[in-house]
């Protein structure tokens, strides 16, 4: 464990890391404390979960698009969840349909877009971009991953138990999730869900505290907060959101565990089920919803902020142009983070909550559109008069911006409580959040993988496959989620096994079938990515140290950065990370570790004044050695 920062430097400590003996395989690749290895562990776990979550969506999309279809061919791997009717046609069990929807949501939101995205890139980039040898606590970091791993195992096991995994949707509202009699998915599957999520929260808190501590304490010489890349700002805000909101979910889950197993009545009152009245009285199901959404809403920003951070970096680098409005971007993110805590009840306009509360939350919700809009405008202005290189990462980043805008705009309608009455819990909501947080965040993650792959694995990913992957996915996502808005406007409710029972919803079969086909194509196109990913790790073209001509510190490390990241001294930072295409400079990029005194030809007048301060920065003594 390391104590941090600003200790007077000892003669030997600068190179202390080189004295480490080679670690064995287990310490190096499995129980590793190195942030880069932990990042890769998160990434690969995230990809595995993403594949599983996406395949689940294929199964329930088939049910929704083709309700008459014979599903007997899925019997070999779904077993009893496919029942054969008297004509021998295979039908998906409605309970299993709900379980699939629940697991798809849980997996995608928590395991892929929280652990897989934040876990991967916060771990990988924070030390590399702020100029630190590792995280503040390598041990806690390792613990964070392995607790996440146990949580994953518990969730995975729940898929195979007889009563099936949790089936009350990812929001697990009680009483449905609290009463075993109400739904098979509320039995052991729900218990495992709660255990898994409790572990997940522990892991997420260990990670989050580490990220914040590292950013505050372990920045290299000269790396003041106003020189941090936007990625780091995004990760820090994300971690703060997580630290403050995940504990609330933990308490919600704990109270639910009590209600389920120890006879308490936090969420239960006046219930008659299975022919008998339960003794519980005085609890409130609405209390659970408040607690859940107090995390649940910040959670969507936990998912999207890191993606926006990664995108900022990718867009600036590949436009060969500084990010527009660096400070406005930081303030927007800070604004989004703050507002994220006070908009949760917009998920609850029609739960019977006091209508006045609805008005307050509507007001606050629509305010959050403003900083989000500013971010969108700034990305677009960054492209303006740039010189854009369409690497796969850049394409995905542009895709993200488009999804963020298109999906974000419908939020203006849903955030309006009067309009939400009709649209609440319809496919309009599904379409909205799949674009704005689901697809946008996944695109941010993919942009990140393509962009930082050379630093992670020392090799390049294949561009041609990247383009194919982008185009099929980008078009596919729009084909899936754009028509879904139409279905929502027509009033189709979510979490329906089929709609044919209602005359009102007996239209749009063609549209549903179309969405299903588009979804299947999009999901299977991801095989191109996975192949490219695995292939490139082993046989990809060898990377150079700074393949994108980027400014941030991670590109000053060797091609394969070892333990401690920089073989010698950690570079000192003199300038902001976005000096791309600076007038007068010979090259179109000036890395952060190049002092102003070395670039007199391109310095702006106020920057010449900073040259005097460089000596001061250089004379700071940091103890940057690794302690363990």
């Amino acid at each position: 464990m390391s104590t941090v920062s600003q200790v007077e430097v000892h003669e030997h400590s600068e190179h202390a890391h080189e004295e480490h003996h080679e670690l064995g395989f287990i310490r190096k690749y499995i129980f590793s404390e190195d942030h880069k290895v932990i990042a890769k562990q998160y990434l690969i776990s995230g990809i595995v979960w993403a594949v599983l979550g996406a395949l689940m969506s294929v199964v329930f999309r088939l049910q929704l698009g083709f309700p008459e279809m014979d599903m007997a061919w899925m019997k070999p791997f779904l077993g009893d969840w496919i029942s054969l009717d008297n004509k021998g046609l295979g039908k998906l069990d409605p309970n299993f349909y709900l379980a699939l929807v629940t697991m798809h949501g849980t997996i995608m939101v928590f395991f892929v877009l929280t652990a897989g995205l934040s876990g991967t890139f916060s771990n990988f980039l924070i030390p590399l971009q702020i100029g630190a040898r590792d995280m503040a606590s390598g041990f806690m970091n390792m613990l964070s991953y392995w607790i996440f791993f146990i949580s994953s195992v518990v969730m995975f096991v729940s898929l195979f138990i007889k009563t099936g995994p949790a089936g009350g949707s990812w929001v697990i509202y009680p009483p449905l999730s609290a009463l075993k009699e109400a739904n098979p998915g509320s039995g052991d599957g729900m218990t495992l869900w709660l255990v898994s999520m409790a572990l997940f929260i522990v892991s997420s808190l260990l990670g989050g505290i580490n990220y914040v501590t590292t950013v505050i304490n372990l920045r290299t010489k000269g790396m003041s907060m106003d020189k941090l890349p936007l990625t780091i700002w995004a990760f820090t805000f994300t971690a703060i959101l997580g630290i403050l909101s995940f504990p609330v979910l933990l308490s919600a889950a704990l109270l639910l565990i009590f209600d389920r197993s120890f006879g308490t009545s936090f969420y239960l009152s006046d219930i008659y089920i299975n022919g008998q009245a339960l003794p519980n009285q005085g609890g409130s199901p609405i209390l659970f919803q408040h607690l859940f959404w107090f995390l649940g809403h910040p959670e969507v920003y936990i998912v999207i902020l890191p993606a926006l951070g990664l995108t900022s970096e990718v867009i600036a680098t590949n436009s060969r142009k500084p990010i527009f409005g660096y400070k406005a971007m930081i303030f927007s993110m800070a604004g989004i983070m703050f507002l994220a805590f006070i908009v949760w009840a917009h998920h609850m306009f029609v739960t019977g909550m006091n209508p006045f509360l609805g008005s307050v939350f509507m007001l606050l919700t629509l305010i959050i559109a403003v900083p989000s809009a500013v971010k969108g405008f700034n990305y677009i202005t960054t492209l303006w008069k740039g010189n854009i290189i369409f690497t796969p990462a850049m394409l995905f980043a542009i895709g993200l911006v488009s999804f963020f805008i298109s999906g974000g705009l419908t939020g203006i309608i849903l955030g309006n409580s009067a309009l939400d009455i009709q649209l609440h819990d319809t496919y309009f909501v599904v379409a909205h959040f799949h674009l704005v947080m689901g697809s946008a965040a996944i695109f941010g993650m993919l942009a990140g993988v393509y962009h930082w792959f050379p630093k992670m694995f020392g090799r390049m990913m294949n561009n041609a496959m990247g383009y194919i992957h982008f185009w099929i996915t980008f078009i596919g996502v729009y084909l899936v989620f754009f028509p879904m808005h139409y279905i929502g406007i027509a009033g189709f409710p979510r979490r329906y096994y089929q709609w044919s029972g209602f005359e009102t919803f007996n239209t749009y079969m063609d549209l549903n079938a179309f969405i299903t086909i588009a979804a299947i194509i999009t999901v299977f196109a991801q095989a191109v990515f996975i192949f490219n990913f695995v292939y490139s790790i082993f046989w990809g073209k060898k990377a150079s140290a700074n393949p994108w001509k980027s400014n941030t510190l991670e590109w000053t490390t060797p091609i394969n950065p070892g333990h401690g990241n920089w073989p010698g001294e950690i570079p000192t930072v003199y300038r902001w990370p976005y000096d791309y295409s600076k007038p007068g400079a010979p090259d179109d990029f000036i890395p952060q570790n190049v002092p102003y005194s070395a670039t007199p030809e391109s310095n702006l007048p106020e920057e010449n004044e900073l040259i005097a301060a460089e000596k001061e920065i250089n004379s700071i003594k940091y103890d940057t050695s690794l302690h363990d």
Partner: protein
Amino acid sequence: MTILIAILAIVFIVLTFMVVSKTQSILKGLSKSEVEESEYLGAPDRYNSANGVGLFVFWLISIVGIVWSFIVYKKDFLPEASSIHGKETDYWFWVSMIVIMIGFFIVNTFLFLFSYLYRHNKNRKVTFYTHNNNLEIIWTTVPAIVMAGLVFSGLRVWTKITSEAPANAEQIDIMGKQFGWTVRYAGVDDNQFGKYNYKLMDDAGGNPMGVDFSDPNSFDDFANASEMHIPKGKPVLLKIRARDVLHSVFIPHMRVKMDAVPGMPTKFWFVADKSTADMRAELGKPEFNYEIACTEICGRSHFGMKLLLVVDEPADYEKWKKSQKPLLTENPDLLNKVPDNLKAKAQKYTSTEPVAAEATPEVVASSVLGNSSKVLK
């Protein structure tokens, strides 16, 4: 379908192999010259322009697709509003929709246009442009003003919809359970609901709604588990409850949605302004019916929680109400739940024939009395 998926799978496998073999040939060519530390591997490749142009072309095709699909599918958007507040929310929905569609087209156009215009060209000089406070102020205030406008219109409508129901509103007790709805009316004689208590719920004993028969107001209450009738042009107040898990009353045509929560009664009031007959005539569908659905996940048959809604002309509605049999008439055994001192009053409802109603009271009462006195001893 299976075949379709198989074909898709094959297409993708073939595609993957093509890409792989192509990649390998490229890689073989490259491996001859070792990569240098400082090589610029991210330099724009020969597909760069195609990608930039592609994004813009994608957008142009999208515009056509969006307009076309909107026109084709518009007919089923927002099923014809049949309530007064529904017309208002529909109006604001389309106003907001126009606002966001303008934003959608403008902003996406800039995004894809810039991708096309500023695709890499080695002769282009990039404009070093880090910030512009005026621009930031403009695009902070413009969305803020638009938002403020939408917020105020929304607040006004929301406050109106959620205000207290008028005193003359027709009240209906609607209860969700796995998996169906039951509605209860206050009855034609006293027009007062009897109390209910979840501890009195008894499916086997014929009291699924937990009506408290010690409250004389309950005697003329009647219930229905397949249809809900409401009068046209008169405020209707739904008193919503659930008895097992969360449910949500959703009447798509009425723009009504409110959760049903065990232990916490909720409400929603509205005025239907088109009767079922009006809608049948208007849509030209003689078999049209209003429907009530559930929109809060409640278990296996969530998708099947349907209740028919019939909107009658006020006179027909009153007639319908009179034709309904009170709970006590439907199930005379419920008389056992009525306390002795009210039995006489309740007896009026236990039989449909008034003559018999006069003959039976003593018998039933004495037998019940006899039993209870035994118990008391």
